[in-house]
């Protein structure tokens, strides 16, 4: 286990990303954790807070191909997955891969698309492959989707059903930058330009290696007790519509491992779980009382660490 050797690279990634997206180090770390845990990230936020920049930054830093789809209500699955077109010169169908055939895909405003298109994307995300015209095509590895979602109360949205939200490992919201970051943002050069000049810190193989190493992070009985306590609280407290699913529990544990690795530890401590918990369960837990913004915090506050 060479946590240390990776830790420098991970640190470098965070530092570089920090120069692009200012004052959001915690969010950047969560996003990187999501990538290390081989999961997809959902960013739920207003337009213009840096969602695209974030996705782009990570693609650049990790040395990955990047593409972006802006979802609209008239989009079809083919616009995402690709299409076979009859080439008259060659008298045969040729497959034109869609934007999904990239390492990092930014799916912007995913809830503007119709459910049909949404599910085409989400299925591809889950299965890491695309089946078109009876032929299965593997997606490039690593494959990582950052989807953004506008707040669902906005007009012209098709909210994602719970089952599809579950496909996202984590969900975060960036939020406005604080005053100091805002000021720096205003006075500095164009972010986009700086982004293009960013040197990649990793290659694909190194990333895959790190992703594999996450599996080997130690989780003790005491920690599993805590995770189980959290899950059963979500099911039994009566604060939420549904409790956390077993998949959510696995996700929580896996993300905690990645977070521990990011923090240069080869074992998970309860603080790791607490750090990632909101972003793992936010899109999975529906508080019964929608006006209780503290519903997620209750998990952290009311569940004792055994």
């Amino acid at each position, binding site marked *: 286990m060479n946590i240390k050797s990776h830790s420098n690279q991970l640190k470098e990634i965070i530092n570089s990303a920090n120069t692009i997206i200012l004052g959001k180090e915690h969010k950047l770390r969560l996003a990187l954790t999501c990538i290390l845990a081989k999961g997809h990230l959902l960013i739920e936020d207003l337009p213009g807070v840096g969602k695209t920049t974030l996705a782009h930054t990570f693609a650049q830093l990790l040395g990955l191909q990047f593409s972006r789809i802006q979802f609209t209500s008239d989009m079809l699955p083919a616009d995402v997955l690709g299409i076979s077109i009859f080439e008259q010169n060659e008298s045969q169908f040729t497959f034109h891969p869609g934007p999904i055939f990239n390492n990092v895909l930014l799916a912007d405003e995913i809830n503007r698309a119709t459910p049909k298109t949404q599910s085409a994307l989400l299925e591809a995300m889950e299965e890491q492959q695309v089946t078109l015209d009876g032929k299965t095509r593997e997606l490039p590895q690593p494959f990582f989707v950052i989807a953004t979602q506008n707040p669902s109360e906005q007009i012209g949205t098709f909210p994602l059903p719970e089952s599809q939200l579950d496909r996202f490992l984590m969900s975060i919201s960036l939020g406005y930058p604080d005053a100091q970051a805002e000021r720096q943002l205003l006075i500095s050069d164009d972010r986009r330009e700086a982004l293009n000049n960013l040197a990649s810190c990793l290659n694909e193989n190194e990333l895959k290696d790190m992703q594999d190493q996450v599996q080997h992070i*130690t*989780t*003790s*009985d*005491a*920690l599993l007790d805590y995770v189980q306590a959290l899950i059963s609280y979500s099911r039994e407290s009566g604060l939420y519509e549904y409790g956390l699913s077993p998949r959510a529990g696995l996700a929580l544990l896996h993300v905690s491992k990645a977070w521990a690795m990011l923090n240069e530890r*080869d*074992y*998970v*401590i*309860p*603080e790791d779980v*607490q750090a990632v918990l909101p972003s793992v369960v936010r899109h999975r837990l529906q508080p019964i009382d929608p006006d209780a913004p503290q519903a997620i915090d209750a998990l*952290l*506050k*009311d*569940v*004792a*660490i055994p």
Partner: protein
Amino acid sequence: MTLLNKLQNHNVQPAALILLVGLLLVLLPHFSHLPIWLSFVTTALILWRACYELQLCKIPNKLVLFLLTIMLLTGIVFSYHTLIGRNAGSAMLLGLLCLKLFEIKSFRDVSIIINLSLFSIVINFLFNQSIPVAFTMLLALIFLFTALISFQHDYKALTKTTPIPLNLIRVNEKQHFRLAFKMLSQAVPFAIVLFILFPRVNGPLWGLPEDAFSAKTGLSDKMSPGRISQLSNNTAVAFRVKFNSAIPLPGKLYWRGPVMWDFDGYNWTAPSNERLALSNFEFTGLGQKTDYTVTLQPHNNFWIFALDLPSTLPERTRLSANMQLLSLSPIQKLKRYNLSSYTRYILPTYTHISNDRYLKLPSSTSTLSKSRLLMNDLTDSKNPKNTIRNVLKYFSTQDFYYSRQPPLLYNDPIDEFLFETKRGYCEHYASSFTILMRIAGIPARIVTGYQGGEINPLDNYMTVRQSDAHAWSEVYLEDRGWVRVDPTAAIPPGNIENTDDALRLNSNLKKPSHLFKSSWLSKQMKQMRFAWDAVNNRWNQWILGYDNKRQKSLFAAIGIPEITWQGLSQLLFSILGVLTVLLAFIVFSNQSKQKNIIQKTYFKFLKKMKKRGLSKSLSEGADDFCCRAIIQLPEQQLAIKHITLLYQQLRYKQYDEERLTLFKKNIKEF
């Protein structure tokens, strides 16, 4: 394919070997009473099976097994002339148990063998209840339990019919042993409570076979030359005595046993109907009364031993006309009784004494001719006391020897002894003295019993052994009644061949330095013997001799003077209930002990932090708490960080003794 074959394929034969060792341990004490051939056969069968387990040989087929069984049963019938009863029955059971070893087809057979072995452990105690046997059986119990666990585990792993308990997965034989030991130790408190509180009844709980109490060594109701001297090397304990008052002088320690007066020329006997003659009589005790408690080893006879002469009667006993104490039932288990005796006494005189009984000589006229001639010289018809004195003087001056291996005597034992061999043990002297008295017209009889005893300095119990068995005479003097005369005491010390005997018989004897200079080794040996004897005595007093009386006195000592068996049962079950709960609590809390140590130590740290005004909420992680604490206590941040890191590593990474010690040390110093 048998189960064991299957097991072998899975490399789990240790289970079978453990079972065989356990069975051998169970058999070991049985060898002392089994016929020699059966001891060999059972051992051979076990070894055969062991060789098979080690894949060195094959097991016999059904026909051979059948023939073996028939031969075994025939042999037992030949040896015991029966198949039932304690001896033959246990021999049959053990033999068949060993044959069953070759009939293992399923787990059921294994469990039958183990259960029968456990039963054989109990059978052992019908023969012998000593400490070594008890310990061997304890060891056997551990082996049998381990075998049971191993087989159960392997069987379940093989058949997968039932889910295997988690704690049995991936364990080796060592862990099976540990589990067996653990389970047995958990049973210990229950065993102790059951032992102490289980209501005791008078007499045996269930009927034992008639032959259960046979073959005990010791005195008998017959005396002939050689009878007592064969006990002279038997160091088995006859009884133990605890004196509650001053210990009498060694010369007064005559423990009265069977009294005999019927002489047929060779054997002395006491006609059995005489036992019922007298129930109370009076005598004058002189000097200090001696109070003592006797713990008598079972000897399957009616007599119980008392210092000459007892002035009180223990419960369920009576006194015969010969002043011998008799129990109402044969002594078949350890018996404890309190007594008082006067070692100096005067017996009443009778107006009439049945002279034909106490003066009777063998009817044959061809014998005793020389004795009669001798008595013509020694008799003082006016003063019987002079006659006695003369005879004793004759013994002391005529070169008589006291020997443990006296020469054999044939047709005329008295004359042969007195005038030819002149070497004899106490019974020779007692018997010839009594006969000489009768020739002189003085009523005389033989008293057998024990003389002396050894005080164990470790627990102040006096131990009387079979080797202390003795015979002496009593003569009737018209003015004094029956008077004890020990002719053996007349032998000059130099004529006593064995130094132990010399010491025992002559209490006034000064230890001649050349004779009794004991080496360091022999002193140590003696010390060890005392210690072992004291342990045995405790075992007898408190384990084997724990009867309803002891039970009652135990409860009286803790303030419950009268306890009924209903009360006992209630107490028994309530204590068992409490024990169960307690044990369950200990077992369950033990499971998380490792974790608990870390947690407990960390709580100490939290307590110390609380004193400094910082308390950790339940849902707060140690790391977060550490960050908060450092801000408050920046001067101690190194220690706090270190403790937190150790805690996290111990609890969330890996348990590690070294780290734990460091962790404890850090918190102690904090």
